[in-house]
């Protein structure tokens, strides 16, 4: 039977880095998607994800409710993204005036093109709808895990998921008609 998050946290605190590696396996993809939706760049999202986990590791001793590791980690990710946003604003003398990179049409279905097209679709969703999709598809399409991570009721989760999928479907149909 798989260990709980609380058990993995306790093992990490006892000095077992591999336990932290297992927590990374469980949550890194979701964190990466949160960071990607902030940065729009997969490389930067990977860097921010590493930052999120480093901070979580450093603050692990302060985590009182160890079973809430997942939602706690998501809150760290949001803070890191917020700081990233502020940092971008601070570097305005570099950034202001740069044109938004042109998203090339996904003519040949290459993976990079696909992620960029879907990233555009994701912009039409609310943050909660994006989280619902991320937590569902990045956690083996397990609704129970998604509900636990988002800390919402089951009905709210399903409502968000349905709404998100409907919007994505509409976006895909609209693109295919063009």
């Amino acid at each position, binding site marked *: 039977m798989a260990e709980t998050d609380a058990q993995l946290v306790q093992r990490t605190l006892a000095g077992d880095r591999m336990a932290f590696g297992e927590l990374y396996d469980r949550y890194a993809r979701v964190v990466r*998607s949160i960071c990607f939706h902030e940065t729009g760049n997969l490389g930067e999202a990977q860097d921010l994800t590493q930052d999120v986990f480093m901070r979580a590791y450093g603050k692990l001793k302060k985590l009182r409710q160890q079973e809430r590791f997942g939602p706690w980690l998501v809150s760290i990710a949001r803070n890191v993204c917020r700081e990233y946003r502020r940092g971008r604003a601070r570097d305005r003398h570099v950034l202001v005036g740069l044109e938004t990179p042109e998203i090339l049409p996904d003519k040949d279905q290459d993976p990079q093109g696909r992620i960029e097209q*879907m990233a555009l679709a994701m912009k039409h969703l609310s943050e909660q709808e994006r989280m619902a999709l991320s937590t569902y598809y990045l956690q083996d399409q397990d609704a129970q895990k998604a509900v636990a991570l988002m800390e919402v009721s089951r009905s709210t989760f399903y409502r968000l998921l349905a709404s998100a999928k409907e919007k994505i479907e509409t976006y895909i149909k609209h693109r295919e008609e063009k």
Partner: protein
Amino acid sequence: MNHTDEVLQNYFQAFSAEHDRLKQRLLESLPAMSTVRPAPAWRERIAALRGPVWLKPSLAAAAVLVVLLSIVMFPSARPDAQMAFATSMDNFSQAQSIHLKVQTGPASMEIWWRRPNEYRMVFSDGMTIVSNDQQRIVLNPKDKTFKVTNPDRGSMDMMVLGPFGMLFTSKDAMSAGWVKEQKLINREEVNYKGQNCLKLTFEDGVRHGVYIVEPELHLIYQATLSPIERPDKANYQMEVFEVNSAIPEDVFQIEQPEGYRLIRQTRSNTTAIPALPVMPKK
């Protein structure tokens, strides 16, 4: 699985890219966690503290006092004033464009400036100075003259901004030396146009300066200078509207109004100054 599910699955697969390599890198860079027992649950800790019943109120009162003292003596991390000021000045000195307003004595002027040497100054008495790559033009409504001269390469006009003008027009690293001379006198947290800012007061032996700085974005919004012997008598006030915004090209152009006399004062050894572009009438 329908088409949308398939598309979403394909999309989210991207977030597994290089997962194992990134995990390895993370684990290798983790510092050693000191071997400590996990903190006991809070109920257990309180129970451990439980002593005779009469101690409880005293303990609670003592805890409140400690918390209050902590707040007073050791406030939670506040933006460092000196750092915020230094970084704001540095940002200001490296700006690619600035739009601000300056009041010096009775006169005020609104200025747009773009690196390296383009600017427009509109004074409260109607005088306008525009300088671009091609020429410097002074429009004077008092004598109805439209004077065209060589471009102001040295941005001497920007000296009207005083030390701030030299900050972003001078080739030398002015900001570092200037900031170093400033001594922090006072620090306040204020709300400026809906933003949480720092109001910082500095003195450098000559001037008394009050600055409104956004400590997270490191932007300077306002600066008020006065002689050190009369800090209450401001002789210079600058309000920054925008930094590094895209200033429209026509800001650095100006057309000769009807009824104004054209005066060309160019150096004889320069090449002919091209004619002013004709601005379309609005």
